């Protein structure tokens, strides 16, 4: 008898392992979001609750750190582990070519595209097709501690890199701040974002209009030399080499930097007295330029995408549309600016997002530079991060490093 029961139990266990739990009657979507920058976890949960209330469709959101997004998507997209995923603007090309996300061109083209910022649209695009719904509309800005600048007798916020270096030198020489400039130069994607901004403002780009690599262009070399020079002469904080965006924010918020490049979220955080000792001292402005370009910033747009394995693409699209709707974007614009141009004249939006942020965005959005929208970008970025760090550490010249990266990019493009 005991034997029989044991046999039955082991048989049931084996059967349970093979069986798939597919008994849910109602549609329940699963969605993957990011835990940092942009909309907060509370914002997304509130938007999701509103969606469920209005449609009856249940959604189970999961929040992970930015670094966890890509591995989670890559290991689950094909089987529909998540129906909706938040992706970075550098991923649609890779995901589309690997067949991990759905082409939603027809659905996106049915929207009022003229009312959506080009940067947000570009963040979803690969070879003229759309692979997601624009959602997070972000770019990097220059944040300046004007009080420290004023202590050095400087009233104007710099508009060019030459002016910024002169101001930084004055601040340093007067002993107001040991390292006036701080950057997120850790071996991570944030380094490429900062380099994209600076290279763009020197007139450089990583690929040409045909997506062919142009990494060792004189403009890119000059921009990288400029970054290395600022580190070598002590204007830029040497600890930048271990910093990501949050470290830049905390350094600036502690009053240990005058100039910092960062995403929009720094504005709210640096003015929050509970986490900043410089609340009310900082301003948000467009990133400085050179003779080659008045300014440049990096596209940090993040679209919502439907995974190829999703069993509920229509409901997923409905959810994405809801999250990106004008109503939701206007309501939760304190941490992320809307994708819709028409919302930038809305008084409530201006009041919630901050007049200064909206004003800076209206200038900065005209100078958006995209990182290469090519399938091999992630692999190239990994190589770029280490090679650029070698230049910043003085182990290589900018020309040597970028010549090597050009060869790497050409090899990857021909893969």
């Amino acid at each position, binding site marked *: 008898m005991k*034997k029989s029961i044991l046999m039955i139990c082991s048989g049931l266990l084996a059967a349970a392992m093979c069986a798939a739990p597919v008994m849910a009657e109602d549609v329940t979507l699963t969605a993957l979001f990011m835990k940092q920058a942009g909309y907060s976890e509370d914002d997304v949960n509130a938007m999701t609750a509103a969606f469920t209330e209005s449609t009856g469709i249940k959604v189970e959101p999961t929040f992970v750190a930015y670094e966890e997004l890509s591995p989670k998507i890559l290991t689950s997209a094909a089987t529909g582990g998540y129906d909706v995923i938040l992706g970075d603007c550098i991923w649609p090309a890779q995901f589309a070519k690997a067949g991990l996300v759905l082409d939603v061109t027809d659905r996106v083209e049915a929207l009022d595209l003229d009312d959506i910022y080009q940067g947000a649209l570009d963040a979803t695009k690969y070879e003229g097709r759309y692979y997601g719904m624009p959602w997070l509309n972000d770019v990097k800005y220059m944040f300046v501690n004007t009080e420290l600048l004023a202590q050095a007798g400087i009233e104007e916020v710099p508009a060019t890199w030459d002016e910024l270096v002169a101001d930084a030198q004055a601040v340093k020489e007067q002993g107001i701040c040991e390292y006036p400039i701080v950057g997120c130069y850790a*071996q991570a994607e944030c380094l490429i974002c900062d380099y994209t901004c600076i290279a763009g403002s020197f007139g450089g780009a990583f690929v040409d209009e045909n997506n062919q690599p142009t990494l060792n262009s004189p403009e890119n070399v000059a921009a990288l030399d400029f970054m290395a020079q600022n580190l070598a002469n002590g204007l830029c904080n040497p600890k930048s080499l271990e910093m990501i965006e949050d470290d830049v924010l905390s*350094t600036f918020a502690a009053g240990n930097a005058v100039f910092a490049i960062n995403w929009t979220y720094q504005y709210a955080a640096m003015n929050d007295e509970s986490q900043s000792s410089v609340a009310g001292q900082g301003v948000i402005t467009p990133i400085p330029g050179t003779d080659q370009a008045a300014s440049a910033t990096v596209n940090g747009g993040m679209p919502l995408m439907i995974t190829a394995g999703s069993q509920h693409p229509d409901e997923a699209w409905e959810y994405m549309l809801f999250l990106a709707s004008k109503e939701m974007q206007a309501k939760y614009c304190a941490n992320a600016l809307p994708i819709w141009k028409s919302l930038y004249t809305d008084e409530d939006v201006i009041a919630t997002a901050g007049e200064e942020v909206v004003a800076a965005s209206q200038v900065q959005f005209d100078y958006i530079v995209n990182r290469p929208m090519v399938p091999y970008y*992630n*692999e190239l970025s*990994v190589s770029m991060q280490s090679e650029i760090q070698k230049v910043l*550490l003085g182990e290589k010249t900018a020309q040597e490093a970028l010549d090597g990266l050009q060869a790497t990019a050409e090899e990857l493009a021909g893969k």
Partner: protein
Amino acid sequence: MRLRKGEERYAAGLLTPAMLIVFGVIIIPIITTFIYTLVNIDPLSSHQGEFAGLSFYIRTLRSSEFWADLGRTLHFTIASTALETILGLLIAVLLNQKFPGVAILRSIIIIPWAIPTVVNGSLWKLMLNGEYGVINAVLEKLHLISSYQSWLGNPKTAMWCIILADTWKMTPLAVIFFLAALQGIDQSIYEAARVDGAGALKSFFSITFPAVRPTMMVIIVMRTVEKFKAFDIFYLMTRGGPANSTKTLMYDTYLQAFTNLNFSEAATLAYLIALAVALLTLVYIRLMRREENA
């Protein structure tokens, strides 16, 4: 003992679920991964799905990056294993003495080992922070440094910081092993040695060390294999930086698979790591057998 027919069926029925699990989560992935090393599995490549033979192995072994990664992996493995073993033995000898509070010390020594690696990595990253890290503050107060240093942003110090963090966490494991071995030594041997005029050092090298040698071999084997495969602490503390100075073979395997989508390169690296670990284990087993026969 020979089983009867009914008993055989009964045993097979009981073993089936376990066998299915072993087959499903170990055997099939091992075979699939090996196939990946022979066939181009890279969804971004125009050669996706083509048979590649041993070309991935040849290309990897010819790559200077592979050897640089291997060098860094060995640096981490050898340095941290050596430190853990030496410190583990010294602390165990100390905790094997009789003095007030030794029982409490023996209990709290386990705490670092009980801390999850995720917490340990984050903790050390915060303590080593170049802007506000407590280690900089202490060193500055002691006048050992003139200003805060970027320990994790400097290629010369980043790997040693990871070794320090890993050693702090894993030394207690070695302490426990050594302590168990030390407590098995008959105290009368030490007394006899003392009567014969042997000092503390002579007793350590003539009695203690030979007695704990088999345990030391076990610790070295276990820790070498574990450290060769270490990934989490690198991911948490430096992500291979700065300038690749902490990029190990395991971290590169992760990058190839989950950043570059080059599953064949990743599978090849994984097999080479497994091969290296198998070779190391074989060497150690031979050494242990020689110890036993000596």
